[in-house]
């Protein structure tokens, strides 16, 4: 877990609590980027927003839109990010910048989870199942939604490309190689 407030205060100024201006965004982005690059493959970096004051659109664009789009372009390998402890103001401003660039990120809420940004309905439905069950294979999804196996597989693969679920290789009951898709956050605790 990474506390955003500590990043600002360490990298910029010991008293700052706001994420405003593009310049501050660039400094914070490069710190987050180096953190995420240093993580082991398959790790989820949870970014904690507690103690953060205002976040403006420019700064949100410079940090989160850039980070998530690079993550999705596989520039950092199989790594994942999620957010927690956001205020309604944080959510509103980050939502706007992610939506504009067709990006999405998972956030932990007090009573579960939510998505910030843009996500197609059919992917959201699939994600809901994974978040509830903890993990899912394409054959299980195919049965649950009565989908062709390749359609189910495509949905899960898309969610994985968006870095909203993690993917692990496995062997099924008939000895064939398959992928298991896992929830990034354990929302049961």
């Amino acid at each position, binding site marked *: 877990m990474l506390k955003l407030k500590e990043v600002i205060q360490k990298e910029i*100024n010991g008293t700052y609590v706001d994420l*405003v*201006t593009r310049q501050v965004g660039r400094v914070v982005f490069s710190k987050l980027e180096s953190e995420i690059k240093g993580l082991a493959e398959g790790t989820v970096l949870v970014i904690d927003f507690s103690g953060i*004051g*205002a976040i403006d*659109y*420019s700064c949100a664009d410079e940090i989160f839109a850039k980070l998530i789009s690079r993550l999705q372009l596989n520039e950092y390998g199989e790594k994942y990010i999620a957010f927690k402890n956001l*205020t309604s103001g944080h959510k509103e401003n980050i939502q706007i910048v992610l939506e*504009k660039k067709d990006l999405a990120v998972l956030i932990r809420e007090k009573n579960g989870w939510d998505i910030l940004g843009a996500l197609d309905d059919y992917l959201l439905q699939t994600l809901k199942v994974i978040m509830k069950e903890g993990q899912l294979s394409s054959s299980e999804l195919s049965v649950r939604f009565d989908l062709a196996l390749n359609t189910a597989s495509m949905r899960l693969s898309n969610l994985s490309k968006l870095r909203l679920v993690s993917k692990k290789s496995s062997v099924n009951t008939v000895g064939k190689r398959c992928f298991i898709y896992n929830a990034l956050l354990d929302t049961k605790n």
Partner: protein
Amino acid sequence: MSHIYRLVVPAIFNPNSFEYFLDQLPSPDDLPQSLILLDLGLVSAISPYGIGSLLILYRYTLNLGARLEIDFYDNDSMYRRFQRWGMFEYMPCGYNRKDASSAEEENLSTDIFLKLQLIKSEDDIYKAIEFLRENLQLPQEEFTDLIVVISEITQNILEHSDTEGFLNIGREYHRIRRRNFLHICVADSGLGMGQSLKEKLRHYQDDYLDGFAIYKALYEGISRYDDPGRGNGVIKTRGIVKKYHGKMVIRSGCAKLWGDVPTWQIERFLRKNLRYLPGTQVHITFPISVSPVEPSCALIKKS
């Protein structure tokens, strides 16, 4: 010195009266070597927009080779107000004033909250935000919205004007409406929105460029940068001002636009072919919910 021009500043100097004032300015061809006398003798109220715009006018006329002086006459209250805004620091021009008898207590409804702050780097924006954090007790959501407004508008100076600019904030308790307001002015003497967006709006005639540039930025989020993440700030600022039932006026080059207005009636609120003033000047009236009602923004009594 070839000519002396006397520009009378209106008694109430704000975004509404500014154009009457600027119409008195001689044409740029007549400015070199001339003396501009700003007559502040009758001014009883000057808004942050008035202060910011005078500063831009000072820089503009100076660049054109004119000299500017201020005539306060016996308007000592205005002289002191200029001092408290920090005007003489950034506008080191000559001024005339008669010795006023004992200083009258200022009786203006608007008071200085944040004096002129030079914006030349992001650190200056942070300084202003820290000042607000220390001096303004507002509900969290309202405060963060206010910070976003100030941060987004002042950043435009650094991102688009190619020069430095100014931020100043006045504070008002409106006795009839029983409400507190912040009057925020962000002004620069840089490129202006028309020139900044010229490439994007190359199909518009020059006469319309400034007006359309303001409109496109304010209502459609157009930016000189192609990244889709750009241009959100101005649109969202308009949204926040609207959310708090505030008011926003943008003047750039030769045009001025009031936001938020119905887009189908935009021509009524967009003024074109005004007298040229370089850069962009934004004035935002932002109602704030300071309690108790009898304001903490009461006039600062002179010691």
